[in-house]
């Protein structure tokens, strides 16, 4: 944890995009150094606040021993499978409800009632039903990601550009063609906004479900580290979680740019 190299960056390099990136890295390094200095300087107990150097050591040791990989893999797997199931079901039900208006009106009060319920509170019940294995975590993640995707699919599909619908009617388009060529692409940006929210919730859901009852996963490791008063290990896991969350978010955004290429195009012109 030496090297104030970041301080000696020439000012000219700080202009423009690259400079901005360098500045962001510089701020991070600065914060880490300040953290190290403060913990050392004020002699704070390692039980309360671990030094960045201790965290780095714990991380390297854990990764070498292979301890973290298995748990990290389990958590990511639960999150990804749960997200895919929850998002697919949310999207599918959103389409069904918006296409069959009467069914939607009948179901809507129930959906609102379930949506206002904090899903993590249901986690103990789900663990009771599905056990301590990976299945119960997938169900919790699916449940927590289902609603933002459902609600955003519904609201996206409810945006109807009358002129575009008239155009499809003039072309004698079928219901399916109107959906595929106009309604779904019109709704896509709103649906992706829902996916962006859902992917963050997916990680929360996986960790909380692991807190409630699990044998493996990063949530279990956090609890173990807490029991062992191993603050450095807890920070290591938090770093992993931040990185998983960030990658998932970037992944969805990457997909969004691919799928909604026309929005990107419009943006870059302005």
């Amino acid at each position: 944890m030496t090297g104030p190299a970041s301080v000696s960056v020439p000012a000219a390099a700080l202009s423009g995009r690259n400079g901005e990136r360098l500045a962001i890295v510089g701020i991070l390094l600065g914060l880490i150094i300040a953290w190290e200095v403060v913990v050392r300087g004020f002699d704070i107990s390692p039980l309360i606040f671990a030094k960045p150097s201790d965290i780095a050591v714990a991380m390297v040791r854990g990764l070498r021993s292979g301890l973290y990989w298995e748990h990290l893999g389990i958590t990511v797997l639960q999150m990804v499978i749960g997200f895919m199931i929850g998002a697919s079901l949310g999207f599918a039900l959103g389409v069904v409800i918006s296409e069959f208006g009467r069914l939607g009106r009948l179901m809507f009060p129930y959906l609102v009632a379930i949506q206002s319920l904090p899903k993590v509170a249901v986690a103990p019940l789900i663990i009771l039903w599905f056990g301590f294995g990976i299945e119960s975590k997938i169900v919790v993640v699916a449940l927590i990601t289902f609603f933002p995707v459902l609600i955003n699919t519904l609201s996206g599909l409810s945006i109807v550009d009358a002129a575009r619908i008239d155009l499809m009617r003039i072309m004698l388009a079928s219901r399916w063609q109107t959906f595929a060529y106009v309604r779904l692409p019109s709704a896509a940006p709103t649906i992706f906004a829902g996916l962006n929210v859902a992917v963050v919730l997916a990680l929360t859901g996986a960790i909380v479900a692991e807190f409630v009852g699990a044998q493996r996963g990063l949530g279990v490791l956090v609890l173990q580290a807490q029991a062992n008063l191993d603050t450095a290990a807890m920070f290591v896991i938090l770093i992993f979680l931040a990185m998983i969350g960030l990658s998932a978010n970037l992944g969805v955004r990457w997909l969004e740019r691919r799928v909604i290429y026309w929005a990107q195009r419009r943006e870059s012109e302005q």
Partner: protein
Amino acid sequence: MRSAGSDESQARRHSEGGELSAVSPAINAARSLLEFSAVSHAYYGAHGEILALDRIDLAIRPGEFVAIVGSSGCGKSTLLRIASGLLAPTTGAALFDGDVVVRPRSDVGMIFQDAVMLPWFTVIENVTLPIRVALGDLAAARLEAARLLDLVGLAGFHDAAPSELSGGMRQRAAIVRALLSKPRLLLMDEPFGALDALTREQMNIELARIAEASGCAVLLITHSISEAVFLADRTFVMTPRPGRIAEEIAIPLARPRAAETMMSPDFAALCHRVRRHFQSGGAEA
């Protein structure tokens, strides 16, 4: 696909066309392509029932260019929606080829005030969309679309995003889209209303050329007097609230029409004749 009747009217359009002035709206139903028969339309607004259209009788022959001029809110767009089958009239009926129009038809095209290009498709994908929707021959349609796009000055923009086009270019693409299905009637709802005056005049000259070449009948809704007179074989003046036909004016100007047409004294006289209906304001020159 053109009937003998439309060929005949096509020939007439290219002649000096003076005999057109004798035609009355009570036209022989068998010869008309589109006919409004006592069409009335009412809707419920904030202050009760509003009569938008009051017993409109009007007939369009195959290949004929008819313009309806009226101030904003006179119900002329409603009339066009009834003709297209997008809207059912309260009473009366629109007849196409003698059949009551109850839904849109594949041989009637429509051009909206906004070009309505879908941003997720390229220009040529937008233009060929009606063929794709109708499950027609997409490869042939693309070739024909490419030819037509080149013809209206959109060469080099086939694979562009609609947002890369100006308003006038988008509207030209919309015209190509409507013509690609080879309609017998083209309904145009203030197609150049959103364009600036210079582009609009240029588009009028192009539309005159396209309509004369394609031979399909056109019903144009506009609030521009000069546009109606320049393009149409017959112009109807509509009064607002309730929408009624105030006068039918034959436009016996020579075809093909071009920029010079607008400088002739006959053109000015015809514009003046239409303008008299709007002395208290409303339509623009």
